[in-house]
């Protein structure tokens, strides 16, 4: 139901993102999905990748401010309206989405997100029998 995500603090300055990606490249880590939202001065780069634990250690050893956390990953058919239907289930329960991004994996859409109430989000996923993926599912596609 959850996958591991790297969250990296990045200064809004040219070259800082490259530095992070170079470290992952040299370690042979494959990116599966990533997103950066920007503010005026810094951004948080969020990455789903192969071998997140090793990637985390590599970055940490290089002095990068990084955290490893669990985020929800639900799987949807790649059809119009599927995301709307899924998110509505959470909204109805009064659960806020902190951030969300998506990618395609093996012909299916994957929604990655974090909520303000992980426990209740988990209940919603189970009660509505939403299809989800786990960390091991990611490795199949590498």
């Amino acid at each position, binding site marked *: 139901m959850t996958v591991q995500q790297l969250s990296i*603090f990045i200064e809004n300055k040219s070259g800082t993102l490259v530095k992070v990606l170079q470290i992952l490249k040299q370690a042979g880590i494959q990116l599966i999905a990533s997103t950066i939202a920007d503010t005026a001065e810094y951004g948080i780069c969020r990455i789903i990748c192969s071998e997140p634990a090793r990637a985390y250690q590599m970055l940490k050893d290089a002095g990068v401010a990084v955290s490893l956390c669990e985020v929800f990953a639900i799987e949807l058919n790649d059809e119009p309206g599927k995301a709307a239907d899924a998110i509505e289930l959470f909204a109805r329960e009064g659960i806020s989405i902190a951030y969300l991004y998506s990618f395609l994996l093996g012909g299916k859409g994957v929604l990655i997100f974090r909520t303000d109430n992980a426990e209740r989000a988990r209940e919603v996923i189970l009660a509505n029998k939403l299809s989800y993926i786990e960390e091991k599912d990611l490795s199949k596609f590498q």
Partner: protein
Amino acid sequence: MPQGEFFNPEFETMNRAQIEALQLERLKKTVEHCYNGSKFYKQRLDSVGVKPEDIKSLDDLKRIPFTTKQDLRDTYPFGMASVPLSQCTRLHSSSGTTGNPTVILHTQKDLEQWANAVARCLWMVGCRPDDVFQNTSGYGMFTGGLGFQYGAELLGMLTVPAAAGNTMRQLKFFTDFGTTVVHAIPSYASRIYEIMCEKGIDPRRDTKLRTLVIGAEPHSEDTRRRIEEMLGVKAYNSFGMSEMCGPGVAFECKEQNGLHIWEDYYIVEIVDPDTLEPVPDGTIGELVLTTINREAMPLLRYRTRDLTRILPGKCPCGREHIRLDRMKGRSDDMIILKGVNIFPIQIETILMQFKELASDYLITLETLEDNDAMTVEVELRDMFIDDYAALQRLEKEITRQLHDEILITPKVRLVPKGSLPKSEGKAVRVKDLRKKF
């Protein structure tokens, strides 16, 4: 009684020989007073085997050890007083909560003499009893408030203790009260002009402003000229520090070429900050002052940490009290921003209380649109949480705590670990990009 251009003609028109004779007489009295009144100074003088009667010439001053800000901190709060506390009527203390602050005590006579010095300065630049004086300095512990208040009142001006901030109200006072003289820090003078422009106020047409007293913040000759041009005033440089009462220590005359320091109040030495040996006149060094007109808490050979030089030659204004060049910087790491004294250690102490932060930081001082501003960049130790709101809350909390400590609101920026410049050995903590000197 004031006479012509002089508020205290008796003292202001003394020639060098008269000044030095008065200094020696007052120095002898001061050393004797300190020796008998202050345990601190008795120990200090005993430690070098100097008795008050050993002071026979101004040159003998050099036998007395220096007094430092650390001495003031170590003897906090009342350890350096030379009179019983019951004879004191005022206390001023430095800001900040990191370590011991410093305290300066005053007797009633000290306050009268302080007011006299400020009145003398203001008279020198043409202030008269029919002027209206508006003080935009902070009041309370900040000596630029009460210091100018009492001096301007003694001179006889209608004095408006407008205090700091609320620029719209300041402007209303200018126009409603017919303010002619303003005391402001240079960056605030620029700010006043900005707001005037926004509101369509022409200082030449809509106000009676004529004289501006600027000080408490390093500024260049260019800045002064620009402020004069903007506001249509003559701007005079004021120098003071709370250890020496506050404002009124040294002040420019109408020549605007160096600040006369009142030598009937202070004995001036300029020393090499490393060797502590005197430097020749005209050479930049650290200003060392001995108060010779104070009762509650005289200071002998106080190291101000301000760097300046004595301007050679005679001033056309007729006063032979020596002139100091505008301050060239500091021989320690103290920052002067908007008239507030800040030590980097105060900022460091606050930052290090946040477990989310790494130990490297950089303080940048810049002039942004004529306003001096401080940015504090600090490295994030780790991504403790995957959330923008939390980062913003952290920035806000650091800003709030810094403001509580240094009384200035810096811009706080979180930066990734390892992104701040590191120098060999001691890291560079302060970058001063302000337009000055």
